[in-house]
C-alpha cells in the first residue's frame, strides 16, 4: 500500500490553539507537526496522551488519537495502551509539574519498564495552568506566587532522575532552537523503548526568560553544548571551548590550550549510565548545559514486547487457552 504523503498541516486538528501568545508551547507543537510526516506512520496509528497543565492541552491540537487524562498519570494510560496495542505509536506530553511533581513515580516506572513510548517533558520551571506556583524544577530561592520569600526546595534534575531510573533514551532540547528540537523529536521517535525529551519551554507569562541563557539565540552558544555521538564536547560561539575530564570531574578548557584528544568524547551508546549522568549534572552557570541526545542504548527489552512475548510463549508452550478444558480441569464430579 502506498501511504498518502502527509504534511505538517495534516496533523492539525480543527480546534483553536489556546496557549498565551508567545508561549514556547507553540514551537514544540510546530516541530512535532513537522516530524510526524517524516516517520511513515499513518495518523490513525498515532496517539498523544497528556496529563494536566498548559502543555497537556497538546493532544487537542493534533489530528491523531489523543487523551487529555488526569494530572501526573499520563504514563500509566500510555503503558496500558502500548502494552495491549504495540502497533500504535504512543507519545506522552507532560509538564515539569505533571511529570515530576504529582507524576514523579509513574515517570520513573515507565522509564524503568522501558515501555516503547516517547515522553516529551515541557519544562518551563513553573506551574503554568494554575497561574504561577513554583515547580520541582524551579530554582532555589525563586519567588513565585507560592514562595514569596523564595523557594526552599532543591530542584529536581529531570535527566538525572531519568538516568537513575534506567532510562534507555534521554535527550534535551529547546523550544526556540527549532531545528535542534525537530531533530531531537525525530531521534526520540526512532528509539525503541521509552524515550525522554526534556524541552526547555518558555512560559512568558509566569516565568519569562527563566532559561533565556539557553533559549536566546545569542546566549545559547556560550551556555549550551550540543552533544554528538562520538564527537568531543566543544562549545562557544567560536567553538573555542571544550570539556575534559580530570580524575572524575569535568572542567572547561580552551580548545587551544589542550590536545584535541584530551576532550571528553560523547558516547550515547554506552550501557553504563554514569557518563550520561555526569553530563546531566552540568548546569548553568558553572557549565554549558548539554543539549541533544545524552543516552540512546539499544537492545534493552521493552515492556510491551515482553508482555506480548510471554503471551506468545505461553501459547506456544500450552496451546491457545481452551476455556472448557480449563473449567473441566482438576477434581470434578457429576450430578445426574
Amino acid at each position: 500500500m502506498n501511504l498518502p504523503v502527509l504534511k505538517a498541516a495534516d496533523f492539525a486538528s480543527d480546534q483553536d490553539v489556546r496557549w498565551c501568545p508567545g508561549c514556547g508551547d507553540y514551537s514544540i507543537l510546530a516541530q512535532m507537526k513537522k516530524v510526524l510526516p517524516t516517520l511513515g506512520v499513518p495518523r490513525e496509528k498515532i496517539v498523544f496522551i497528556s496529563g494536566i497543565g498548559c502543555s497537556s492541552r497538546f493532544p487537542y491540537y493534533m489530528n491523531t488519537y489523543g487523551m487529555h487524562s488526569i494530572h501526573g498519570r499520563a504514563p500509566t494510560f500510555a503503558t496500558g495502551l502500548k502494552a495491549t496495542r504495540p502497533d500504535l505509536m504512543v507519545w506522552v506530553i507532560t509538564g515539569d509539574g505533571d511529570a515530576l511533581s504529582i507524576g514523579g513515580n509513574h515517570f520513573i516506572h515507565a522509564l524503568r519498564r522501558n515501555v516503547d513510548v516517547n515522553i516529551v517533558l515541557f519544562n518551563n520551571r513553573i506551574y503554568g495552568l494554575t497561574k504561577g506556583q513554583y515547580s520541582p524544577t524551579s530554582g532555589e530561592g525563586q519567588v513565585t506566587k507560592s514562595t514569596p520569600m523564595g523557594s526552599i526546595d532543591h530542584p529536581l534534575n529531570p535527566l538525572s532522575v531519568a538516568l537513575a531510573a534506567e532510562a534507555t533514551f534521554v535527550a534535551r532540547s529547546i523550544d526556540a532552537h527549532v531545528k535542534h528540537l525537530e531533530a531531537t523529536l525525530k531521534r526520540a521517535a526512532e528509539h525503541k523503548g521509552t524515550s525522554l525529551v526534556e524541552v526547555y519551554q518558555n512560559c512568558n507569562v509566569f516565568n519569562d526568560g527563566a532559561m533565556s541563557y539557553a533559549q536566546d539565540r545569542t546566549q545559547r552558544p556560550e551556555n549550551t553544548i550540543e552533544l554528538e555521538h562520538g564527537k568531543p564536547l566543544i562549545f562557544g560561539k567560536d567553538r573555542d571551548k571544550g570539556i575534559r575530564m580530570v580524575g572524575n570531574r569535568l572542567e572547561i578548557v580552551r580548545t587551544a590550550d589542550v590536545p584535541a584528544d584530551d576532550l571528553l568524547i560523547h558516547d550515547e551508546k554506552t550501557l553504563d549510565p554514569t557518563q550520561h549522568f555526569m553530563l546531566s549534572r552540568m548546569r548553568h552557570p558553572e557549565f554549558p548545559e548539554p543539549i541533544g541526545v545524552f543516552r540512546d542504548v539499544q537492545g534493552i527489552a521493552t515492556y510491551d514486547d515482553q508482555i506480548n512475548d510471554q503471551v506468545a510463549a505461553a501459547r506456544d508452550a500450552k496451546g491457545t487457552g481452551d476455556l472448557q478444558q480449563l473449567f473441566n480441569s482438576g477434581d470434578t464430579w457429576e450430578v445426574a
Partner: protein
Amino acid sequence: METSPESSNSPVEHVSGITVRLAGDSGDGMQLLGTQLTNTSALAGNDVATFPDFPAEIRAPRGTRAGVSGFQVQFAAEEIFTPGDTLDCLVVMNPAALVTNLADLRKGGILVVNEDGFNEKEFKLAKIDKNPLEDEVLESSYRIVKVSMTKLTREAVSELGLSVKIADRCKNFFAMGLVYWLFGRSLEPTLRFIQDKFGKKPDVAQANESALRAGWAFGETTEAFGVSYRVEAAELEPGTYKNVMGNQALAWGLLAAAHRSGKELFYGTYPITPASDILHELTKYKNFGVRTFQAEDEIAAVGATIGAAFGGTMAVTASSGPGIALKAEAMGLGMMVELPMVVINVQRGGPSTGLPTKTEQSDLLQAMFGRNGESPLPILAPQSPGDCFDVVQEAWRLAVECMTPVMVLSDGYIANGSEPWKIPDVASMDPIVVHHPDAPGDADEPFLPYMRDENLARPWAIPGTDGLMHRIGGLEKEDGTGNVSYDPANHQHMTDTRAQKVALVAERIPEQEVFGETEGEVLVVSWGGTYGACHTAVSRCQRAGLTVSHAHVRYLNPLPRNLGDLLKSFKTVLVPELNTGQLRMLLRHQYLVDCIGINKVQGKPFTVTELVEAIRDQACIGKDCTVVDQKLKIRVG
C-alpha cells in the same frame, strides 16, 4: 489394613449435614487440610460451603492465640448456603486453638484434640494458666477425643528415616485421615493431591500418605469415637461440578467474558488483600491472551486499564477499599471518557487499613459516591463464590452496552470461601457483542465520538481506525463532538445524559426476584456476600411459620425497577448488612420506605442464628410467637 470408607467396619450414623472446624497454629497446615476436606466432600456429592479464617501476619508467632488459623466447612446432603453457625465437630492442634474456638462448638459436639500439643510451653504461649483439658466441664459438655497425633505420626513415618521436623510436618495429614474416617470420606482425592504436590520428593509424599492412612486407621481401630458419620450426596442440579473459590471464579468469569466478547483481557492491578489472588490466578492464563500488569500503585493500575480500554481491549482493574479510594480520581475520568471497563472491589474490614484479612460490606457508598462531582456508575455484587463467575460477565456486558466503567463489589468472605460450581457449557454461552465503528464511508462527514445510541452509549472507536481520529479527556465535553465545552446548557445536558445512561440500565436488567410471598409481613432485603446467611435464615423462619420473604439485590445501581413497589408491599422491611446501613440508606432515600437495619461490623459474616433471631423479633412484634419459637429451637437443615 485397607483405608477406604467402604472398608470401615464401625457403626455408621447418617446425618443431613456436618459443620467442622479445623484449627491449629498457622504453621500447622490447617488451610490445606480444610481445602482437602472440602474438595473430598464436594466430590462425594455433598453441597459444601467454607470459611477460612487466618491471621493477618504472614507467620504469626507460633503457639499464640494470634497465630491460630482456622478453616470451617459445612457439607450437607441438601442445598446449603453458609459454612454453618455452630460446630458439630472441632479439631484442635494446640491449646491456643482450643481456647479461641471452643465457644463455637455446640453442646454435645465432637472435640478432637492433639494431646501432644498440650504442654506447659504451649500453655505459656497461649497465655493460659493450666491445662484446659483438665477442665471437667469439657468432658461433660462435649464428646472429647484426645489423640497423640504427633507421637502417632512420628511412629507412622518412622521407617522412612526422616528428620523429626519433617516428620512432624505430616501431622496434619494424620489429623486429616482421622477426620476422613470420622465422616466416611474417601482418601483417594487426597492421595492424588499428595502425588501431584509432593511427587518430586518421594519420601515426603510417602510420609504424608503414611500419616494420612495412619490417621484413618486410628479412627477405625480405636474405639475412641464409637460411631462414624455419613452425609449423603445432595440433590444438586444435574451437571458436572467442581469446587471453586470466589476469587478464582471471578478470574474465570473474566476469562469467560473476554471469550464471549472476542476480546483479549488486560488486568491492571496492585497487590492488596483480599484481591491479590485474582492476579495470581489470571496471570496463569497468558495462553488465553491474558495480560496482567502489576503496576507501581493503584492509580497506575486503573490508568493502564483506561489506556487499554481506549485501545479496544477488555480491561479490568481490582483492589480493596484503600486501593479503590486511590482509584477514585481516575474512575471519574473513566466515566467521563465513557470507555467500558470493570472495576472490582473485594471489600475488607475498614475504615483505613482496617482489618485487611476480615470481611465487611462497607464500601457500597464509596462505590456510589466516592468520586468528585456527579459521576454515576453501575454497580453489581455477587452473592456467593460461584456467583462471582456470572456477575463479572454481567458487569462486562453492561460496560460494553453502556460504554462505562462498571463496579463489582465482592468481599473477603466470598473471595476466600468456596462452593460447588456447575461447570458451564462454553459452546452455548451467549456472545457479548462489541462493535468498533469502521472508517466512515464519507470522509467529509466529521466523526462524532459523543454521538449516542439507544442506550445512550457512545461509539467505541479505537486508535488505528482511519478517519475516526478524536481526542477524549476529563474536561466537560460538547455533546456529539466531544470537544471541550464550557457551555452551561451543555454541561447540564451531559450531566443529565450520564445519569440517564446509568438509570436506563434498569430497563435491561431483570426485575427483582423474591423468595417467598411478594407482599405481606416482613421482607428481608440483602446484597452481596450475606446472601447465604439471609437465605438460610429466611427459609428457617418460613418453616417455623413466620411470613417472611427475601429479596437479594444483585444490581445495586441502578436498583431493579420493581424494587420500590416491592418494598412498599411489605409491612416491615429488614436490611441486614455488614456495615452500619449503606444499602438501607439508598433504599430509604430512593423509596422513602422506613427500612430497618440489621447491622454487624465485626469483620465476620452473619450467623444464621443471629439473623433468625433478628427477623423473629421484628416479625413477632405484637404477636404470640410461642409456636414459632418452639419450631425455631429445632435446627432445620
